[in-house]
């Protein structure tokens, strides 16, 4: 399949006509392609854009002069002299016959009378259009069709009586998603769609992506949620609003179907449109939208009881000391230590009512993971005036008393560019500090530091589409793309299917590693040795790109020397990867011809993360695998707007567009635009998230927008204590999160569906999402909150809309100069740099120079050092943390989404079968993990995805927070915590034991 292949050149075909009109068509086009090109509609059922042609339904038959038989338009190539009639009497009669025949087994009683006015799907549309009358179900012989139904599935269900066996779903699953859950089983009149070998989609590796839902023309495969919520699904909800998925950095385009100010369902744009997702989504994008309407949404500002207004000032009358921010909840640490429900077995039919409730929550089973009611107790609802007044007063007070260093904001990779821009503007211009950061610190900060040192850049060089279309070798290091960026993961699988050579460097046997041509399964944290050895072998074989090294780079000799002590045999001793495999991988990598390099948290979240990325960049540069279509450097970004938040200056050392805060000229420029004296702004880079929350940090007042650091930061027990200790904490969020419960003031923000703004995906694509519904209650769009707060704090701020904010951004960010809402209205968005209004955007960078003063990249040597924590007798296992397909980050959103929650309802740890057997642990058993810092009780999942002596713990779960265990040691360049490696021990926990 060629998703997204640009159509070949359209040739006039002088004598070919359709319905009398002369047409043009590319070589090899079918009659259907030509007709669509000419705007002539031919009905189709089994045909679907870009899927392999099945040609089995025969609804598309047309008459061609000189041909005795009707021809299927979808499967017949158009030739020079064809004269095609699409609605000839013969063709129409044949179509009626096809429809009549299909109707014989279809429950169509509602189409006999009044229902004809409202056909429910594409198939029924045709039935009505061609005037075919169904026989009532009771009066006919053939039985309704059957098939596997996915009973009890929380997201996707089948009503196979409506199946017409077009096999679109089979092909979509096989060819777009490259999974192959579905097929046609049995034969003749028994033929039916089957799910795996035994009807269980779980065992057939279904990812719940919903591609099958999307392509089914009859609704035989359908989404459960709208039906559960709204009963009979309206065929079309109005309006349909263009948005961007709120989860990962792929930045899928989605459409929100709105009715009565509620999001009814999510669909994706046509597969044929130019969108980053080419019409696909993953399970989160398509089915994970109900958190928006979860009853836990904050609908009014909250003020901690104890704050009272006396005259014109707010004063704290509550307890001081340790109880100042206490509440009737247990700390994350205490919850971690508690016994909990063992994990239910993994299978379909995990109906919500069969899942364990989080123990405190005894209400409606649909809200298994809701905010416990007592969390609200320490708060009272307030008006916006009260809340913002208090925030403004306290932030001004702390600033006056402790100076600019005491002030900080955490920005949000979930909020829009405009919102991030406004918040860093506020803290920098009003408080004169650069203490601005966001979760990029825990994500790609080491990539950014390494890429800035080598190339002076902070973003991917290429596009996702080039990987699918044009690269010959894909090298993936420490990125579990099919789970964390599933839509991109599917395109990698398609690339592999079309013949791209896949090399995966990962300690776990993740899905891509199983598919890979070479899997380099190294010991965690030994990547530098691996990459250095690859480069060593490349140099030994003379496979380096000498021309590229000479013309585009400098300091190569230093790296040449640095890799000299890493022959593959030595790397084998360190990494555990056989030397021969390292050699083979190195040769394939260097020979390309076009090799794309992808990496993610598996490299960055290490004590040596900066060195790991540096040694990978050395590999890229030495082989010249950058700056061509198909040879891309792709750090895969996590959050939907982590790229944008960084671009907007939500990092402590740069203004928007990576302009240094230490440069007086830059300060001058920004001060002018923001209307303040340059001297009021600081030239000193600020503190990073991980430095701010350390004991002894100077921060006294903290404003958090849309982050939940108590779950995402390492060594939670300490982090939690720190958050309780500061003087003032304001949190702006959708829910009362684990962090927000410690706040003085909680400000209810808006979800992605409730505001307009732009997001930047992992390939630098700026996309505009439109507001679809209103925020609940008095909640406000986050940009409005910041504008209001800025004015109250005395920083004149007059933006009437996000669009106006963008107008200012393009003035100050050179790479965004050509960006405007007008231009962003097209679905494809714009890939920055967009230096001017007429610039089309940049699909890939660095074809002739790097953005350094002399245009050259610099090699930096990197040496291997042991990971921060090594296993020993007492802590014999190496723990790795990361994400799951069904959950997002700290679970705030995904755990409040019914379908996602039902798939992964409890915290689990993956343990290798042999280790589990040795410890006497079986699937679902509770175990206690103990690291040098803390312990949690969690369910075991026995899985050979992890290697022996390694375990994997997703960090989404409050009740068994992985980050209680992780180490807070910081990487020296970017201050990234070493989240990926920590030594632990595992003990079975007898149920009934006291903890």
């Amino acid at each position: 399949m060629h998703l997204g292949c640009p159509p070949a050149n359209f040739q006039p075909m002088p004598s070919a006509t359709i319905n009398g009109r002369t047409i043009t068509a590319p070589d090899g086009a079918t009659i259907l392609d030509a007709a669509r090109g000419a705007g002539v509609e031919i009905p189709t059922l089994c045909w679907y854009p870009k899927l392999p042609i099945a040609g089995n339904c025969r609804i598309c038959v047309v008459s061609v002069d000189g041909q005795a038989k009707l021809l299927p338009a979808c499967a017949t190539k158009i030739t020079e002299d064809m004269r095609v009639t699409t609605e000839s009497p013969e063709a129409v009669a044949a179509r009626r016959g096809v429809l009549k025949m299909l109707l014989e087994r279809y429950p169509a009683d509602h189409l006999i009378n009044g229902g004809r006015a409202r056909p429910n799907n594409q198939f029924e549309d045709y039935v009505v259009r061609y005037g075919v009358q169904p026989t009532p179900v009771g009066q006919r012989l053939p039985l309704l069709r059957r098939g596997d139904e996915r009973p009890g599935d929380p997201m996707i269900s089948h009503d196979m009586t409506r199946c017409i066996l077009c096999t679109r779903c089979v092909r979509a699953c096989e060819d777009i998603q490259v999974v192959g859950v579905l097929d046609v089983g049995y034969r003749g009149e028994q033929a039916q769609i089957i799910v795996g070998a035994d009807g269980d989609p779980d065992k057939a590796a279904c990812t719940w992506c919903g591609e099958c839902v999307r392509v089914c023309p009859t609704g035989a495969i359908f989404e459960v949620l709208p039906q559960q919520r709204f009963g009979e699904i309206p065929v079309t909800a109005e309006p349909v609003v263009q948005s961007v998925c709120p989860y990962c950095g792929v930045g899928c385009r989605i459409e929100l179907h709105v009715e009565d100010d509620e999001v009814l369902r999510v669909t994706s744009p046509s597969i044929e449109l130019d969108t980053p997702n080419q019409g696909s989504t993953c399970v989160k994008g398509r089915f994970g939208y109900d958190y928006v309407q979860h009853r836990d949404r904050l609908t009014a500002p909250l003020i901690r009881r104890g704050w009272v207004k006396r005259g014109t000032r707010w004063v704290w009358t509550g307890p001081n000391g340790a109880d100042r921010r206490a509440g009737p909840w247990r700390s994350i640490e205490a919850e971690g230590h508690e016994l909990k429900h063992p994990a239910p077995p993994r299978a379909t039919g995990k109906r919500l009512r069969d899942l364990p409730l989080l123990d405190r929550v005894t209400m409606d089973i649909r809200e298994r993971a809701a905010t416990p009611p007592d969390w609200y107790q320490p708060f009272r609802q307030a008006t916006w005036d009260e809340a913002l007044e208090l925030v403004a007063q306290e932030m001004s007070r702390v600033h006056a008393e402790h100076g600019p260093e005491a002030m900080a904001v955490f920005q949000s990779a979930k909020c829009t560019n405009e919102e991030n821009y406004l918040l860093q503007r506020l803290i920098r211009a009003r408080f004169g500090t650069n203490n601005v950061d966001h979760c990029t610190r825990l994500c790609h900060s080491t990539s950014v530091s390494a890429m800035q040192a080598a190339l002076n850049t902070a973003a991917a060089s290429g596009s996702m589409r080039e990987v699918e279309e044009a690269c010959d070798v894909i090298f993936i290091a420490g990125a579990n793309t099919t789970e964390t960026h599933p839509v991109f993961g599917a395109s990698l699988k398609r690339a592999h299917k079309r013949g791209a050579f896949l090399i995966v460097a990962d300690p776990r046997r993740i899905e891509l590693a199983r598919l890979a041509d070479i899997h380099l399964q190294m010991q965690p944290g030994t990547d530098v040795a691996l990459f250095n050895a690859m480069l060593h072998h490349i140099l030994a074989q003379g496979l380096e790109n000498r021309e590229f090294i000479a013309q585009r780079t400098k300091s190569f000799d230093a790296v040449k020397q640095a890799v000299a002590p890493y022959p593959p045999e030595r790397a084998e001793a360190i990494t555990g990867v056989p030397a021969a495999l390292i050699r083979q991988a190195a040769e394939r990598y260097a020979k390309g011809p076009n090799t794309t390099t992808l990496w993610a948290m598996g490299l960055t979240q290490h004590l040596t993360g900066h060195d790991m990325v540096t040694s990978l960049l050395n590999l890229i540069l030495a082989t010249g695998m950058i700056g061509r279509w198909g040879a891309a450097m792709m750090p895969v970004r996590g959050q939907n707007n982590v790229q944008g938040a960084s671009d907007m200056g939500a990092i402590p050392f740069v203004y928007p567009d990576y302009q240094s805060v230490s440069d007086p000229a830059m300060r001058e420029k920004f001060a002018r635009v923001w209307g303040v004296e340059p001297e009021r702004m600081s030239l000193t880079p600020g503190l990073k998230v991980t430095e701010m929350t350390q004991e002894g940090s100077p921060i006294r007042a903290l404003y958090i927008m849309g982050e939940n650091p108590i779950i995402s930061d390492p060594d939670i027990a300490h982090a939690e204590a720190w958050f309780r200790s500061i003087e003032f904490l304001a949190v702006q969020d959708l829910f009362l999160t684990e962090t927000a419960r410690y706040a003085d003031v909680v400000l209810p923000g808006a979800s992605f569906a409730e505001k307009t703004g732009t997001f930047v995906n992992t390939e630098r694509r700026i996309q505009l999402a439109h507001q679809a519904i209103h925020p609940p209650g008095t909640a406000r769009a986050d940009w409005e909150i910041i504008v209001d707060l800025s004015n109250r704090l005395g920083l004149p701020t007059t933006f009437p809309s996000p669009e106006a904010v963008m107008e200012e951004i393009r003035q100050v960010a050179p790479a965004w100069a050509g960006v405007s809402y007008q231009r962003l209205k097209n679905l494809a968005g714009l890939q920055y740099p967009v230096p001017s209004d007429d610039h089309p955007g940049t699909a890939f960078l660095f074809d002739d120079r790097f953005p350094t003063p002399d245009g050259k990249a610099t090699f930096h040597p990197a040496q291997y050092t042991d990971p921060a924590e090594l296993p020993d007798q007492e802590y014999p296992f190496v723990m790795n943390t990361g994400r799951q397909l069904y959950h997002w980050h700290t679970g705030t959103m995904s755990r409040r989404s019914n379908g996602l929650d039902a798939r992964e309802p409890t915290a689990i740890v993956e343990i290798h079968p042999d280790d589990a057997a040795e410890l006497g642990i079986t699937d679902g058993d509770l175990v206690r993990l103990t690291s040098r810092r803390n312990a949690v009780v969690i369910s075991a999942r026995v899985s050979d995805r992890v290697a022996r002596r390694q375990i994997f713990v997703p960090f989404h779960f409050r009740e068994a927070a992985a980050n209680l265990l992780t180490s807070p040691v910081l990487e020296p360049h970017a201050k990234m915590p070493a989240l990926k490696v920590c030594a632990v021990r595992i003990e079975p926990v007898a149920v009934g034991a006291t903890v």
Partner: protein
Amino acid sequence: MHETTYEPVFTGDRKKQLDQLLPRFPTKRAALLPALWMVQQARGWISDHAMAEVAEVLGLTPAYVKGVVTFYTMYHQHPVGKHFVQVCTTTPCNLCGAEGVVKAFLEHTGCKELGATSPDGKYTVIEVECLGACGFPTPVMIGDDFIENVTPEGVPELLRKYQ
């Protein structure tokens, strides 16, 4: 159909046998039919688990394997008796008394109905279409043995050979 516990088929010698088979086919997928026969020989029938195992060893999807198993009539998706009895009942044989032969088999094997397995687990009887021996009615297949000219009276005698 499902089993409660599952022992993989392709281990030890059978794995070796399969590995020897594979090079004779252009792709692994092409070896699907013989691989399924190996399962049926070993287990008597092909369970959902076995389909998933075959999918795994041949790099196919479980649904694809099930699609193939269910397309053909000669793969058993349910356990069958030790001796699988197929009686031709197509028109020519039918005219010569095949119905009586079927009845005799059902009676003497203790199978209550076509397709069911006798309580002692020894027999399953089914009707099949023309076995290509129309001149020798009624032909019957018991396991891999082909027997011609079977009459209702001859059935008990015949069954004694298949215990």
